[in-house]
């Protein structure tokens, strides 16, 4: 599973990263993480409000930090 955290280092981006790690660990999944901080690349994902979460090349969250349970649902829905 390939996970990208999009955000230019704001406080919420760090929260999103932490919450995502937690969700992945709780489900016992294996994931490759990448932090995308370049605004050009963030924009090219069609994201205009950070932080955003990309799972397997699909934007699933943008502009807010979901709860751990939300992310677990997004991870298992795939």
């Amino acid at each position, binding site marked *: 599973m390939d996970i990208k955290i999009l955000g230019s280092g704001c406080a919420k981006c760090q929260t999103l990263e932490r919450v995502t790690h937690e969700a992945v660990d709780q489900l016992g999944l294996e994931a490759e993480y990448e932090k995308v901080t370049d605004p*050009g690349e963030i924009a*090219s994902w*069609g994201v*205009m*409000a950070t932080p955003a979460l990309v799972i397997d090349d699909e934007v699933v969250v*943008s502009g807010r930090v979901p709860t751990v349970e939300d992310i677990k649902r997004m991870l298992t829905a795939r």
Partner: protein
Amino acid sequence: MSVSAVVDQPSTRSPVRRWLFVSAAVVVWFTLYQLNLRWWNWFVFELVGLEPDTRLGGSVHFFFYDITKIALLLTGVIFVVTVLRSFMSVERTRALLGGRREGVGNVFAAGLGVVTPFCSCSAVPAFIGFVAAGVPLGVTLSFLIASPLVNEVAIVLLFGLFGWKVTALYIVGGMVIAIVAGAVLGRLRLERWVEPFVFETRLRGKVIDPSAGLSWDDRLLMAREEVVSILRKIWPYLLVGIGLGAAIHGWLPADWFAAHATGWWGVPLAVVIGVPLYSNAAGVLPLVEALHDKGLPMGTVLAFMMSVVALSTPEMILLRRVLKPKLIATYFGVVAVSILCIGFLFNLVI
């Protein structure tokens, strides 16, 4: 699938309990707001025994009364506005702006800048997203100017401290600045001063709308988190602003500004001082309140506030990624001149 057993079902808190809780919070909020003045009168003047007419007594009372009032206003306002704004998103705004021409587009962009949930930390991806999707440069800039200038925090604090007339003038003035500055910048054909990669950015993937598919519990939770994160971010500004405000309140003679600073140069001076200062509406308003109490004219005071919130150096450094220095300088210049004009106009009107 085994993992799905680990995932809790979406929260099923009963709506009755949720709304009872919200109503209780509303009652507590109004009670505290009503008791604030009486409580600090009693505490500072009766219990501690300071005299209301002395410098120290006046300052200390101002500090505690104001900090409580502003903290309450901010908490209530950010909460309510975040819930309302959770129905709106930058993606929707862009969809509404797509295909609008300059002129009407600027008006729309300024209005949407007020209601769209937007953090200046997302200014760059939003700028690229707008321009790459074909929203004209001037219209995009109208949005970026209006967003910090006329925001919910500024509006409610102005209303709480100065009443509805000043608030209405501020909103209209801020919108006019965003519309006019955006339209002027659009007319100047400054696309050549935008970094070329912006126009070459290809948007991939499907756009998701963050405002879609949220439950009431989600919206209330988001609002609570927003209150905490904003208060955490702005409390140093708030303390410094209220501290300065309290010192001015106690130590500067009443009408000091009325005697010393009514010349035409008041407005430009306010803008020159305001531009390098970086704060948000919450930090600058206690100061604005104290300055106005001492006789600084309303237009000068609002010009100061606008230049502090609308022209911030950190945002410009971010925007440098997508705008060449010439465009940033022009942007600064056009917005500063617009603020000047509004300041002069307000001083004439009020």
